């Protein structure tokens, strides 16, 4: 079941399955990953390496680095990545965990 999201998607698109922290999640193929995760109800993308504070997307244009997630083992900005089938996404979990 799709979790309740603060965001609404205007158009329906064909979906593909990605893994988020090991759990399958269906997202629109080719969509901006950060936007797709928000629409899927994911609010917290990571915990900061400094204090463990929760963060989500802020600028959506590749400038703020708040939407950092680990994708197939590399920490990247979710807002600069497009959804493709089989992406393995992991949310960094705070002090001592991955960052750029």
């Amino acid at each position, binding site marked *: 079941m799709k979790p309740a999201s*603060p*965001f*609404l*998607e*205007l*158009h329906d698109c064909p979906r593909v399955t990605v893994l988020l922290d090991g759990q399958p999640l269906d997202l629109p193929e080719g*969509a*901006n990953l950060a*936007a*797709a995760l*928000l*629409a899927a109800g994911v*609010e*917290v*993308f990571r915990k*900061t390496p*400094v*204090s463990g*504070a*929760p*963060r*989500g*997307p*802020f*600028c*959506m*244009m*590749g*400038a*703020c*680095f*708040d939407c*950092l997630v680990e994708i197939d083992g*590399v920490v990247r900005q979710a807002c*600069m990545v*497009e959804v493709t089938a089989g992406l393995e996404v992991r949310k960094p979990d705070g002090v001592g965990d991955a*960052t*750029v």
Partner: protein
Amino acid sequence: MQRFDLAIIGAGPAGMAAAQEAATHGLRVVLLDEQARAGGQIYRDVDRVADLRGDILGPDYTDGRRLTAGIGRDGITHVTEAVVWAIEEDFVISFTKDGKGAQVAADRVLLATGALERPMPLPGWTLPGVMTAGAGQILLKQSGVLARHAVLVGSGPLLYLIAAQMVRAGTPPLALVETQTKADLARAGRHITGALRGWSYMLKGVKMLAEITRARVPRYTGATQITIEGEGKAEAIRFTSGGKARRIACDTVFLHHGVVPNTQAGRSLGVTHRWSTEQSCFVPVLDASGGTNVPGIFIAGDGGGIAGAKAAEIAGRIAALRVAEEAGHLTQNARDQRATPLLAALAHERAARPFLDTAYPPCAEALGPADATVICRCEEVTAGAIRSYAGLGCLGPNQAKAFGRTGMGPCQGRYCGLTVTALLAETNGRTPDETGYFRIRPPLKPVTLGELAAMADPDAKVSDGSDH
């Protein structure tokens, strides 16, 4: 290494117009852009989206297709998803694409890197669910993703634009919490002549406000004591307006109090910047055609001072003409002939700015945040910490890095730099120009060792990633 007559960084209105103009005069142009499709932030993904959501986004957005159509021609190599991280000697430009480093070189470089949202550090602004208004608009433009329960906070025309677009899309914001006051509007009155010259912008503003009012979106003006509340994410906004304390429950907050030039690339090249009192930010010092103090480096568009998309397009053309002349593709006369009407059009586009800048000034509480407010999002440094560094003799932002790592995280000061300058200037009783800004060095964006190790063969040709 592949060498071009002109490298343009950024495929927004300034970059696209400049590329088209330069190619028209026979220059070989490489257009490097971070996004997968041309448009910049203002026309983000316009080719794909115009037919889907053009009715919501309006003709000012769909008009961007005119520019994207202009770059699909011979003479322009459009490298998409290229994250530029260094521009060095001989204008060798290093960038990452598809997880690999790559380089091109150019005789001249035009920086068309546009604007960033002015940092708006208010209590709670780092909570998930709090985003820039620009981010809200990008979600709508590129992805058709809309916030169901959003409050828009701050000041300026962009706030009205996104509110009007949300109304059209059927999810009006819960409220507009606006920080400008009636006194600001009265002060703006002295710029009324310019406002009248730029009447088309005024008319658009009036129409947007009418749409917002018709949808019965509450507007609270002169808002102060703004705090975003929430446990682990945004849950409500508190503020005072009209002498009354208010609280609105919401899960999304869009912040905006103007945009400022993205100066990172220019600063890394030693371009001189000055403080603009009118726009409360640093701007590069430019001549009439976008030339800087560094020979061969030009700047056009909002990165040279905020004036909007139409002005950016014109400034891009003016800069391209100048480059064409320097490169020997145009005589001075031919350039003048073409540039003169463009310069007049640019002045016209800029006419309404002083009125708008005065009527919608930055939010005072965010320019001088309370001590407990985090101002450096990456390293989680508070305003109070910056003030305490000043008390210990810290005069400038570079010194502040040594005191507490502010500006040293991955965003490299993009969302704290102006705040750090403001706080040090205020505490030390010095001007922003005296206080200065972070020294920006390459890499301009983080680059991994893997990307460096995978650096392409320097003799390899860059591929044209465009769909044209």
